[in-house]
């Protein structure tokens, strides 16, 4: 059978739409093969890259990906960690050992670190084929979020909201004097003066609605300029100096470790008549 492309580059495809026929084309992300045809699995823009067909999704739930920095909410406390809602179909798991460098003894109260309802900025360290998601709090900028509020956006628009090297989000941050953290999973944390925060949210919604259009940065700049009168200038509090996690000292004896036993120098000093250290009691 002769191979035939049934869709043009940058056209919008809907799930189930047949994109190409024949074995000369290969299915990329967002597409799959049935028999000799390639079918779209999501709603999005088709990219024809030589023989490969790719689909950039325009909607849909967040799919956890390794090394993504996301915002999650603690929904459960387990024996050795936390279950985190990551705005996805799958929950994330944060283990104690990835959450803190403190020594945490068995049966300790874990709510002192993170408790139900807490929002955290966290990083995905691993996603298994069965979609078990491992999270970590070790890394710059990973922390518990205090104050402010969370808004949710379409996860597939997040790259446009962040912009190249974070250009878009820092544009909004500077113009609205607000603190903003964007999670790859479509949750955004914002804290600022009420009036400014509303402008920032409107700007984010504007990006979300016009993400597929060109010249977005200019439009957002225009929007922010037009709303300048609504913005209250405030001095930005410098970000709290981040707590650098202590280095894991393997032989640091200051801290007790699980399985530690008393050292020789913890013993009371030897007195006259004591049994010498090295003599065995029974011989």
């Amino acid at each position, binding site marked *: 059978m002769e191979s035939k492309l049934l869709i043009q580059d940058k056209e919008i495809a809907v799930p189930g739409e047949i994109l190409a026929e024949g074995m000369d084309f290969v299915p990329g992300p967002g597409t799959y093969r049935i028999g000799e045809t390639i079918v779209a699995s999501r709603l999005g823009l088709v990219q024809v890259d030589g023989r490969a067909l790719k689909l950039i999704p325009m909607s849909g739930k967040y799919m956890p990906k390794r090394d993504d920095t996301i915002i999650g*909410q603690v929904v459960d406390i387990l024996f050795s960690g936390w279950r985190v809602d990551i705005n996805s179909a799958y929950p994330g798991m944060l283990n104690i050992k990835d959450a803190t460098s403190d020594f945490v003894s068995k049966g300790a109260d874990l709510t002192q670190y993170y408790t139900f*309802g*807490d*929002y955290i900025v966290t990083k995905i360290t691993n996603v298994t084929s069965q979609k078990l998601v491992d999270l970590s709090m070790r890394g710059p900028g990973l922390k518990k979020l*205090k*104050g*402010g*509020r969370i808004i949710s956006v379409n996860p597939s628009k997040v790259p446009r909201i962040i912009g190249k090297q974070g250009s878009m989000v820092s544009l909004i941050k500077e113009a609205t004097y607000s603190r903003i953290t964007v999670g790859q999973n479509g949750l955004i944390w914002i*804290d600022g003066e*009420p*009036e400014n925060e*509303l402008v920032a*949210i*409107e700007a984010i919604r504007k990006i979300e609605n016009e993400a597929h259009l060109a010249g977005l940065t200019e439009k957002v700049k225009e929007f922010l300029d037009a709303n300048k009168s609504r913005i209250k200038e405030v001095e930005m509090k410098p970000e709290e100096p981040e707590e650098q996690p202590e280095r894991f000292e393997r032989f640091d004896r200051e801290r007790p470790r699980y399985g530690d036993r008393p050292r020789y120098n913890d013993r009371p000093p030897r007195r006259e008549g004591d049994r010498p250290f090295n003599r065995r009691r029974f011989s």
Partner: protein
Amino acid sequence: MMYDLKEHVIKFLQRGLRVDGRKPLEYRDISIETGITKNAEGSARVKIGETELIVGVKMEVGSPYPDTPAEGTIIVGAELLPLSSPEFEAGPPDIQAIELARVVDRGIRESRAVSFKKLCIEPGKKIWMCVIDVVTVNDAGNLFDAAALGAMAALKTARFPEYDGEKVNYKKLTDKGLPIEEEPISVTVLKIGEHFIVDPSTEEEKVYDARLTVAIMSNGDLCALQKGGDAAVTEEEISQMIGIAVDKSKELRKHLSAI
């Protein structure tokens, strides 16, 4: 984190703003559609902003309660579908659904919106029972006001089915409408910190201190109150909340009168 959110909401209210940019006493856009289902004798779809629900009215013939042999009755049920909010679970109505249904029921019953006497077919034997069902489609806050509004809109457009004394023919509706004699409007006023708001969003419903649902008749009289929330309210605060509700009911009444 809930505490954080509350602080944040209050910070906004101190500036006379809401977290979604509205004024404290501002409703979202309201739209009412009627006659949306084929099988119900009366129906309405109400949208308040993103909140959406459907109300259906079914007319049934039944026997009267022994203490009111010459009066018909209404039965209100509410179903909070799991698809409308992550908080709702499938299964028998929970306390939230029961409260919603009872508040809607009380508003209609106590204002005598439907003349129960005129729903009587044969005293002591047969009466019309008016079953009102509220089904949520999306909960973005303020289900109380939306449900009460939808119930009245559905009742206003409901028609009796054909009845030959034995069997009800639901396939054919008569031109005869229900005996509507009053149009109560419910307005829910929330207290967050020291501030009062109407038409709460989901976030605000998570952090409110006290809530008062006021049902107001067309002449401005009150016919029902329902207080919710953990915090106590003073007498003065209640009259303040009622004042807001009466004021806002005029706005909502326009939507209902237009039907």
